[in-house]
């Protein structure tokens, strides 16, 4: 018969303040959608398809294409990734975006 033992957890305690999401939109009609791209996984085709579908399914949706924002490369050092992300968000606000679609892949 094996001896019984008591053990502690190898995990850490949860830390870090967390921010909540912004409020969702009630409708996409008449909204401005910004596109943010990382040059991955056929995004050119996918963003083009989103634009077509927004035009077919909603009224007055304006898309700001991904080439009007900085490309968000997957590589690079963490500081420059963060800087680019903040720049994208700042531009989105400046350009009057009501929402963003970012991709592709993760």
């Amino acid at each position: 018969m094996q001896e019984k033992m008591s053990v502690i957890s190898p995990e850490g305690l949860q830390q870090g303040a967390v921010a909540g999401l912004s409020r969702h939109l009630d409708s996409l009609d008449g909204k401005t959608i910004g596109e943010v791209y990382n040059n991955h996984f056929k995004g050119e085709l996918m963003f083009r398809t989103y634009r077509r579908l927004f035009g077919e399914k909603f009224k007055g949706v304006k898309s700001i294409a991904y080439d009007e924002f900085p490309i968000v490369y997957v590589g690079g050092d963490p500081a420059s990734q963060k800087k680019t992300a903040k720049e994208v968000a700042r531009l989105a606000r400046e350009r009057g975006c009501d929402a963003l679609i970012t991709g592709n892949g993760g």
Partner: protein
Amino acid sequence: MRPAVEAEKLGIPAVVVTTTGFTTIARAAAKAEGMSALRVAEYPGAVGVHAEALVEKNVEEVLFGRIVDELTRPVKAGAAQAAAAAGKPDAIVFEGTFDEINAYFREREWTDNLPIIPPTPERVAEFLKHTRRPPDQAIAVLAQANLEATPRNIAANAVMAGCRPETMPLLIAAVEAIADNNYNLNNIGSTWGVLPFLLIGGPAIQKMGIENGAHMISRGANPAIGRAFGMIIRNIAGYKLGRNYMGTFGYPLNFTIAENDAECPWEPYRVEHGFDRNDSTVTACGTVTWGWPPAIYGTPDKTAAQTALEFLSIEVTKKPCLARLAEQGAKGFRDMITIMIAPPVAKSLAAAGHSKQDIRNYIYEHAKVPYRELEFLMKYGHSEAFTIPDAVARGIYPEEYLKEKPDGMVRVLPNPDVINIVVCGDPNRNRVMVLWGGYVNPVTRKIELPSA
């Protein structure tokens, strides 16, 4: 993902488009950036190997609706990460036998799927004697799970891995290293299979029983230190297989290397990086293991299947001992090439009409390098210092090689049958991996399972 986080912080709803299997890692990365949740719309399948028409269909019929839903409906906050179960860092979380504890830890994904030594308070206390830091002092908060590393939980992982107690200061320093933003811990979940490892330098090598000579990663304190580092990545940084640790074919065990100052004709690594020769240092490093080479994509000018064939042919020519790889016949080197193909790539190849033998034949015919390159590798990387004509004369290279010089292209495989093709790995990733093996031939035997 990061732009979405920053946009959300400015009050702009942002949806991240992921592919199948990558939603969890996106949410985890957002959490590490301080967000409780993330709007995610998942594309069904591996977009990289989908033809354009299928991509459009999937966007139209599945993905677009998900994008609209995420932007126009309330999103629930993510569930809290399971932290130390009882909320107290020294709390007993389980009592049981060795086997029961191992089962309990395995169920919670606290192990590397090998047996662990139970982290009893007594064993952990032995490790804590080797640091002046209080047991529950915060050493760092590690991405992606945002869990706090303390001497106590670092020690628990070290016990589990079978470390020696005196390695405790090394592991604390290793945690501090991976917590440095410059290490980029928040980005190691890639399907490339990023494997963190440690480089040790200085007097700690001798004091802690670390090996820096022959067979070093397999000797002394090295394997357990590497294993503990891997446990910390899983249990404190929160990288869990298949959720946010996405290596297509998985990961070998984390390992430890150590610099050999006595045999080094230059300044040691740590001195190069601003430390004193008498300092002991640990450097957190990483290697990309099983998951590279990169994804096999379909593009407007090539199908995913054709890209896979060409990519595999090139990859075969990148093996380290190419001159030996090309040898054939009874006197030639023994070779085996194992190609691991993730299911989406295998399916795209099969859909294009390629059998396994077709793939072997294609790679055999197309894996080529210039004659002069092969001869360089043979002459300067080969213990016998042959030339290609020598090798032909000895019967280990075919005579056809003599027709191609010096810039003509020659095959690097002796025949198609040295290639072994295995479909395995993440069913949602379009990756391949080519393993070169020498000295052995593959031998297969039937496993006699006991009858029910």
